[in-house]
Each structure stands twice: as C-alpha cells, then as structure tokens.
C-alpha cells in the first residue's frame, strides 16, 4: 500500500511538474534555471580572479553548487506540497486521510523534482566541462562510489524535506519561502562553494554535523578524485561514506519524529485543513 501511495504520489508530482506547458518550453526551463544559478558563481569567481578556472577551488565550488540543487529542490518540493495542497487545491486533508503513509506520499511527490533536478545537474556539469574547463572525464569517475554517495545524499535531502514539511503543516501561507531560506543556511554551513575551513571556527562544528558536508565532499571525490576542504582531507573515502550513512539515517529519524510532532500539534489546533491565504 505504501509503495502504491508512493507511486501514485510520484505520478501526481510529475503531472503537476510537467503538464503546464509544451515539452520544448519545459526543456528550456529545465536548462536555463540551473545554468543561470551556476553562472552566478562563475561570474563571481571571474570578477575576482580575472577568469582563471583551472584551480581546485573553482572545480570544487562548481560541482558543489551543481549537486546542491538537489537539496534546495527536494526540500522545497516536499514542503511546497503541503502548502499548495492545503491552501490552493484544498486536497491536503483528503491526501492525509487517504494515503497509507503521509511520509511516502510526500516523498513520492518529490520524485518529479528529483528527476528534473537530475537533468539540471547533468546539464550544468556538461556546460562546465564544455565551456569552463571543468576537469571532469567520464572515464575517471568512480561510478560505484558516486552512486552510493548520491543515494545517501538523496536520503538526507528527503529527511530535510520532511523537516520542512513538518514546519509547513503548522505555518501560514507566508511560509512558502522557508525551504529556500533554510537551504540557504545549509549552503553556508556545508562547504558547498568554499572550503569548510573558511567558516568562522564556531560554525565549523555545525557544518561537520550536517550530512550534506560529507555528501558534497564525497561527490567531489567521486567525480574529480579530490575534495575541497583541507579539514576533511584526512577523512578517507570509506569514512566519508560511513559518516554520511549514519548522519543521513539519524537525520531521517529526527525528521520522522519531528514531522509526527508537528502533525500532532496541527491536529490538536485544527490546522491540517487550515487556509491562511492573505
């Protein structure tokens, strides 16, 4: 039943994501958005370094930024489902009652975002390789390690998405930007576009406690054979994977409990079907 709910939710998510326009415009949308996001960093880098892109820093930040799109999109995707279904389509209460597991429903709705983002990541990496001297060679990629790291990272994304969804359940309509804001904080703390060592000392332990720090580091190692943060250089690949596994599972456990807690508050206050549009 749960798998069926997941499949149905994935189908629904795909319908919502793709049926608003023709395939051509959808493809344009799927390319322009991520490439623009990557180019912001590229221009920032160019402006300071005068166009040098051969360094490790550029490669590290480019790859980090590309894969971080999963974080923002999956967090947004899962939390937005609550807001949109509740406020506009007024179907959240029905899904809540009908779906065998709301967790599976929310995760299923994020599948479409995952697929679209995967396309975006591939486009951004391809763009970087073709035009910005990004040192990526398909033959040099450690595919097995990449698959393992990626799977665990997506698990962490789902966990954080569930956290945000829990917040949405008790938040009013103006909460639509929360996931983006929260993703921005993770962007700062997880060494996505600069080495973790650049962060002020009090913030570095916070970054080390977040699974995405290890995820991004692991992805860099899988794709380019090296990471970006000197402070993580002493952590071997297996340890990166192990820490990522443990931290993702821990985050998922916390997220499930948190969502259950928020749901209880919502049921107590009659917020499951509240409409707060203003």
């Amino acid at each position, binding site marked *: 039943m749960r798998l069926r709910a997941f499949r149905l939710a994935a189908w629904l998510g795909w319908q919502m994501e793709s049926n*608003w*326009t023709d395939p051509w415009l959808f493809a*344009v*949308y799927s390319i*322009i*958005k*991520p490439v*623009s*996001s990557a*180019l*912001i*960093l590229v*221009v*920032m*880098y*160019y*402006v*300071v*370094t005068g166009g040098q892109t051969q360094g490790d*820093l550029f490669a590290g*930040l480019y790859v980090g930024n590309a894969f971080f799109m999963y974080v923002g999109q999956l967090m947004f995707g899962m939390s937005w489902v609550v807001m949109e279904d509740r*406020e*506009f*389509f007024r179907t959240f209460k029905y899904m809540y009652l009908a779906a065998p597991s709301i967790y599976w429903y929310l995760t299923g709705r994020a599948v479409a975002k995952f697929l679209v983002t995967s396309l975006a990541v591939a486009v951004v990496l391809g763009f970087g390789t073709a035009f910005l001297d990004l040192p990526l060679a398909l033959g040099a990629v450690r595919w097995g390690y990449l698959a393992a790291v990626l799977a665990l990272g997506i698990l962490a994304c789902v966990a954080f998405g569930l956290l945000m969804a829990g*917040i949405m359940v*008790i*938040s*009013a*309509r*103006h*909460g*639509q*930007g*929360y996931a983006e*804001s*929260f*993703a*921005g*904080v993770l*962007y*700062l*703390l997880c060494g*996505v*576009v*600069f*080495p973790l060592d*650049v*962060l002020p000392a009090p913030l570095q332990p916070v970054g080390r406690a977040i699974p995405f720090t290890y995820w991004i580091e692991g992805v860099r190692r899988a794709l380019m054979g090296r990471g970006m943060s000197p402070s993580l250089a002493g952590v071997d690949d297996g340890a990166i994977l192990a820490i990522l596994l443990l931290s993702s599972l821990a985050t998922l456990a916390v997220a499930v409990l948190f969502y259950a807690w928020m749901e209880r508050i919502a049921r107590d206050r009659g917020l499951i079907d509240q*409409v*707060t*549009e*203003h």
Partner: protein
Amino acid sequence: MLEELERNLRAVRARAYVRVVGTFRELSWVAFEIAMPLLSVGAYVFLYRALGAPERYIGYVLLGGAMTAYWLNVLWSMASQFYWEKQSGQLEIFFITPVSRMSILAGMAAGGMFMSTARALGTLVLGSWLFGVQYRMEGIWAGLGIFLLTLAALYGLGMVGASLFMMYGREAWHTANLLQEPIYLLSGFYFPVRALPRWLAAAAGIIPITLGLDAIRQVVFPGAVDGLLDPGLEAALLAVSCAAYFVLAHAALRKLEDLAKREGRLTLRWQ
C-alpha cells in the same frame, strides 16, 4: 473623480491590511525571513573572502541580498497573487468590485512591504555589523533616494507581471520560477554588473534592480569604481522606467483582463 480616487485608496488600504494582519498573526517568518536569509547571503560573503575579493564586494553581496527580499515580494506576493487568488476562488469577488486592479495590487505590495523590509534590513544591518562593512555616509541619502525609485519601478514591473499571471496561470508561475535565477545573474545581485558583457548588462537594465543596485553601490561604498553607468544617469533612467512600467501595467491589465474574459480564463481554476 474624487469619489473614484477615494474608493481606490480605500481598496489599497484594505488589501494591505490583510497582508499586514496576516504577517503579525503567524510569526514563524521572523526566524525564516530575517535570520536565515542573512546566513544564506553569508555563503557568498565567505566565497568572496576565500577568493580574496576587495572588501566592498561584501557590501555588494549584502545589498544584493537585501534587494532579493523585494524582488521575491514582487514576484511571488504581487505578480503571482492574482494567480493564487484565482486558485482560491477569490479573484472573481475582487473583479466584480468597482476598483482598479492596480489598486488591489498596490495594496498587496504595500502590505507585503513590511516583511520584505524586515528581511532586507535584517540582512543589511546585521550583515554589515557581522562582516564589518563600511559605507560612505555622504552617499546614504542619495542611495536611499535611488532605492525608492528602484522600488517604485520594480513594483510597476510587478504589476505588468500580474497581468500575465492573471491570463496564463500556471505557465506564468513556472516562467516566473524560471526567471528567478537568470534575474539574479543578469541584474548583478551578487557582483558588479559591469562584469557581464556590456550589451548584456545594458539589456538587463530593463529590470529596475540592475540599474538600482549599480547606482546605489557607487554612491554608498567607498572605492566603488566598477559601475556600469553614472549613478545620476541610472537614477534618471529608473525614473523614466518607473513611469513607463506603470503606464504599461495599466494597459496590460486592461488588455489581458479583457482577453481572459474573452477566453473564459479569468475564472478558470487549476489551469
């Protein structure tokens, strides 16, 4: 005429009231809209520090981050608002009232300004203190003036966007979503727009934030010599675009409402 004006002003006030009341009745935004945006902007600050950029670039990032609040307000809480109203079935009730659509939008903008300003000030003031950003005090008033012009032009552009949302619904929503990052890029939210090819930067001038950010940076940050155009010229262009956008918004809202009514899209939900 006076009666008409009074009615429209009342409509602005009433619609703004909804936003302001909504903001204060659920306060989770204080954490998410003030603290977190500052931290996410901090990522670009640390990137510039890691690259060894001049200190004024930190100020550029903070200013860009502050303007993000208004850009997002225009895009999601104003331009797309008719789409949301349609989804929730309110649009029809607004559209049978004898007030200008621009009054309704102005009310939404005014009401949303509070949260946007709180976010912008949080980013700017706290960020400046945290990262030790210096300002040219003699340029502050000019910067404020240019900022207000930018805002007026931006909201005019938002009204033009609202007409498209009213007509095209979800397609417009996704298009706005599509435009978010390209606008950050082309308007130089986080870097001097002069870094882009000149023709591209000039084309991006159609977005008020491009010229607004560039002008404000030149007048408030010491050592800012990487502007696109003279700040006075940029302010003048902003004033012209402000007037142009409002005129365009008036015409676009009428035309697209007419078209929406002709095609039956005005009351069509979930399209």
